[in-house]
């Protein structure tokens, strides 16, 4: 195994360049509007944070390797270098300064998918040894231990035992032929155990068979965040193998944005074939079950609350209406944030930023965008559907001395399930 090198990095960038990338670079006229959509620019005011600038090394590789003009320019010594200095300089822009939220891609007048290119350029930066420490360790844990936070099966089993003891709900493990296979994110195991309980209650009421796999309970995929497809593939394969071995119909991605992107959209392309099962986000499943009348809710949250759209779920995942239908069913005072839905502002911790300690400062600066959105609304509760958003929001709110609880939508729905009185009491 060769060590990281600049040459390797350039080659990996080169390998990522396809027709869409070439058309994007051919079309960019440097209008700079993408900066206005990027919270890492709007909150820092640093022109270097302009999204299209973050992929400048990739543009150079494209021009020099794949255009006749660029080759001619290189011949006469006009080509701009892509060297150690460039990798060092751009590393923080590519990782710390981008949450892969994709807002820039949606505003580009010529239609450039800039955030898609940042995802691609990370392949080169990681191969060149220019990935952030935090992400490398998370990825190492994800590959070697099975979870980026180092959560092992015993921890999950312990949580299942606690849950069964506390509530009497059953959590099936490795049940062959179940309809749903539920994935969890490490954060849900470590920080938000309410999620598992909510799932158990919902599945019980809906009367659906479900299971958790002992070999693939973890949904998050650090390989996607650090930008190493080969490792992302290893992580996805665990889920695919488990789901296909158990013969489940549907794999449910948890309340985690990039996990959904990894398993739903990137997975089949990483393993090179379509799945033999479906992948749905928990919100999609909840919406379906509600529409089918399989779960009913009662009572309303009266607190003034708003919903934070996770980028990977809404803008990049297309799940915008489902959470609103669910919220309106269980909350009487739901108000929209400014620019809701596909144009939401990122929590500032997506795309591996929250796993990268070096980016803590810029992350908090970028959080100011969310803060000002929340300041406008003066809500009592903030609902979201992504564990990573949730953690980032909680940290951000705390750092800003704001006392707003952040709640997962799935839990909130679960709390309002129509059940017999005693259970309801104990749950709330």
């Amino acid at each position, binding site marked *: 195994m060769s060590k990281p090198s600049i040459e390797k990095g350039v080659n990996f960038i080169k390998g990522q360049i396809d027709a869409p990338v070439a058309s994007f670079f051919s079309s960019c006229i*440097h209008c*700079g509007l993408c900066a206005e959509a990027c919270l890492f620019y709007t909150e820092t005011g640093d022109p270097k944070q302009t999204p299209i600038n973050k992929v400048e090394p990739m543009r150079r590789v494209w021009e020099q390797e794949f*255009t006749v003009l660029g080759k001619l320019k290189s011949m006469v010594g006009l080509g701009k270098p892509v060297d150690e200095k460039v990798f060092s300089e751009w590393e923080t822009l590519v990782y710390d300064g981008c949450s892969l939220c994709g807002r820039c891609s949606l505003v580009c007048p010529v239609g450039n998918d800039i955030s898609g290119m940042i995802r691609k350029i990370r392949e080169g930066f990681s191969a060149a040894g220019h990935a952030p420490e935090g992400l490398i360790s998370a990825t190492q844990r994800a590959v070697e231990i099975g979870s980026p936070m180092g959560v092992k099966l015993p921890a999950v089993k312990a949580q299942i035992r606690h849950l069964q003891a506390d509530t009497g709900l059953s959590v099936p493990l490795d049940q062959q032929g179940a309809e749903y296979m539920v994935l969890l994110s490490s954060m849900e195991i470590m920080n938000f155990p309410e999620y598992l309980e909510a799932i158990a209650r919902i599945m019980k009421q809906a009367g659906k068979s479900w299971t958790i796999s002992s070999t693939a309970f973890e949904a998050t995929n650090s390989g996607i965040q650090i930008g190493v497809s080969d490792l992302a593939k290893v992580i996805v394969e665990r889920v695919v193998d488990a789901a296909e071995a158990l013969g489940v119909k549907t794999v449910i991605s948890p309340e985690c944005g990039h996990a959904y992107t990894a398993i739903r959209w990137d997975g089949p392309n990483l393993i090179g074939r379509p799945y033999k099962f479906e992948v749905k986000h928990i919100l999609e499943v909840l919406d379906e079950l509600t529409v089918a009348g399989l779960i009913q809710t009662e009572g309303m949250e009266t607190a003034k609350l708003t919903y934070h759209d996770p980028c990977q779920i809404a803008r990049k*995942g297309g799940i915008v209406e489902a959470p609103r239908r669910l919220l309106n069913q269980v909350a009487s005072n739901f108000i929209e944030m400014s620019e809701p839905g596909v144009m939401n502002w990122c929590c500032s911790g997506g795309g591996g930023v929250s796993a990268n300690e070096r980016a803590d400062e810029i992350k908090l600066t970028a959080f100011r965008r969310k803060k000002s959105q929340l300041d406008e609304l003066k809500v009592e509760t903030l609902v979201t559907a992504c564990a990573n958003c949730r953690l980032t929001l909680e940290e951000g709110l705390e750092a800003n001395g704001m006392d707003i609880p952040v709640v997962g939508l799935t839990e909130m729905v679960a709390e309002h399930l129509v059940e017999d009185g005693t259970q309801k009491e104990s749950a709330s």
Partner: protein
Amino acid sequence: MELNELLIWARGPAFNIALAIFVFGMLLRLFEILSLGRKEDLSAARGSGVAGGLRTILSRSLPRQTLFSREPLRIINGYLLHIGLFVVIFLYRPHIELFERLFGVSWMGLPTGVVDAVTAVTILSLFVALLIRIYNPVLRFISTPGDYLIWLVTLLPLVSGYMAYNHLLLGYTLMLTLHILSVELLLIVAPFTKLTHMFSFVLARWYQGYLAGRRGVES
């Protein structure tokens, strides 16, 4: 005497050369782009990629509300520039005559006075664009010499055309010659600069729209 010879050269051999370079260059760029290919997307589609691609080709012509409220001047100016260029290039009768010769189809033009006024607005919008490029910190940072080059190359035909029509500075014949030469410069430069976006934007929008369409995402 040299002046008329120059006009004849500009309308004849020079235009041929410029047109040839334009066609050659644009095709080369198209091949360069398409040759890099795109992997088939194996994920289960939620919506239609084709519909999404086509929709985005059109929908990206309108700005997002959020962006418009942040940068109204830049966006309105962009519209003025592009609509202006469209009107000036495609709705001026003498130009239509050229396209008719080229493609065999003709269409209605606008009164010359209207085109003249639109030209003035378009020139103005280019200068506003330049000021924004110089004074906006982002634009100043990301702008390359090429950006200023294409600004100039776009400005020259507008200004020379305007000045020829309005008899400013130089005689009409000389101005007309300069106008034609500046258009030829534009044709020559276009395939090798960011001006390729005049065609490639369709591809770019298509690719992103296709991706979004498959995911059932609004784009």
